[in-house]
């Protein structure tokens, strides 16, 4: 990874996500700090990135690097964590039942991704799907349901959710600028994740596991009863 990317591009991108992630435009500007639960989600996300090889901490901090380079690498990791908290702050609704459902859904999704140990590309695609879906649900579907004037989408959704009270679903109404800002924020975040230094050599995550490596080596596939041995 180039030193420009490590020293300037990544920290500034992640900090921009941290700045924009809490911005909500209503009658006045509101800057929402991240809820505590987003810290848990961000911690899991960083874990998933490391496990999948999308983030190689040893390329940012190691004994072979100078102190200044290690500090610079630590800043990238910390700023990625802070940006992740704010990205979840954008993605999770602010109140009511949707907040609870989104939080649980994201937690289960991240735990599942962590357990599945996908490779870097799959994790990045997964992040795109997770944040893209959350954006659509929060800023298009829930925003339409919360709009007191309503539009065609609200009428369609109300027809689909016949008999369900919207009291627990409706959210604070923000100006459209909030949605655009959220889109930019999430795009920047996923883009910055793709720029993180990956594990060298394109190793698969399971190759850390000696048992799996042994089994997958052709010579080890032979059994003791194999006549060729």
């Amino acid at each position, binding site marked *: 990874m180039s030193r420009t990317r490590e020293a300037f591009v990544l920290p500034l991108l992640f900090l921009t996500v941290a700045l924009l992630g809490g911005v909500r435009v209503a009658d006045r500007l509101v*800057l929402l700090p991240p809820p505590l639960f987003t810290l848990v989600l961000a911690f899991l996300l960083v874990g998933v990135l490391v496990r999948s090889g999308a983030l190689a901490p040893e390329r940012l901090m190691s004994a072979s690097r100078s102190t200044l*380079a290690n500090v610079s690498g630590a800043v990238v990791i910390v700023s990625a964590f802070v940006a992740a908290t704010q990205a979840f702050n954008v993605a999770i609704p602010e109140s009511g039942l949707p907040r609870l459902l989104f939080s649980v859904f994201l937690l289960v999704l991240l735990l599942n991704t962590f357990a599945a140990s996908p490779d870097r590309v799959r994790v990045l695609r997964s992040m795109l799907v997770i944040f893209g879906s959350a954006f659509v649900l929060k800023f298009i579907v829930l925003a339409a349901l919360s709009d007191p004037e309503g539009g065609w989408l609200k009428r369609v959704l109300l027809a689909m959710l016949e008999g369900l009270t919207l009291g627990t679903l409706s959210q604070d109404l923000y100006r459209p600028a909030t949605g655009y800002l959220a889109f930019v924020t999430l795009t920047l975040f996923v883009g910055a994740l793709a720029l993180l230094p990956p594990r060298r050599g394109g190793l698969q995550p399971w190759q850390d596991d000696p048992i799996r490596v042994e089994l997958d080596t052709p010579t080890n596939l032979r059994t003791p009863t194999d006549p060729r041995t």
Partner: protein
Amino acid sequence: MRESTARSLGLALTAAYAIFIVGLYVRQPQTVAEMTGALTASVGAYRIDDRAFADGLRFFRGDQFDAARLAFDRADPAHQDSRTQFYIAYSYYRQGWGRVYNDDALFARGLEAVDRAVAAAPGGRIVVDDPDLQLRSADELKAELQAGRRRELADLNPLKVFRRRK
């Protein structure tokens, strides 16, 4: 550029940006003007509109407090100048003061303004050298506003009607 120079520059830039972001989240600016004002104030480049401030002062001395606040708001749209915010707080005090009772709502807004003034002042200390004012520091003004909102037995003292506005 040498590697150590580039990395030091990157760290300094990142630290400054992070401090700015934390500062914004702490200050909670409510308008774009306040946000840009906080940004310029953080680098010491914030200036008020002197002409609007002079207009505000003229209205304030003529007891036209609503007009004075409009002019002060025009002078300091980002609420970053401690002296302007002090005068806004003082205008709420004078407008809300009454011989029999004080206007709680105006006093409450005065307290908000004086808190903004203290937050914007270096070291939180404000002393305004204006012979027209009897309360020349933010501490005195805040204490007066707080006392005005307090309910106590002394409020029933009929001699209270002879007190004077400061």
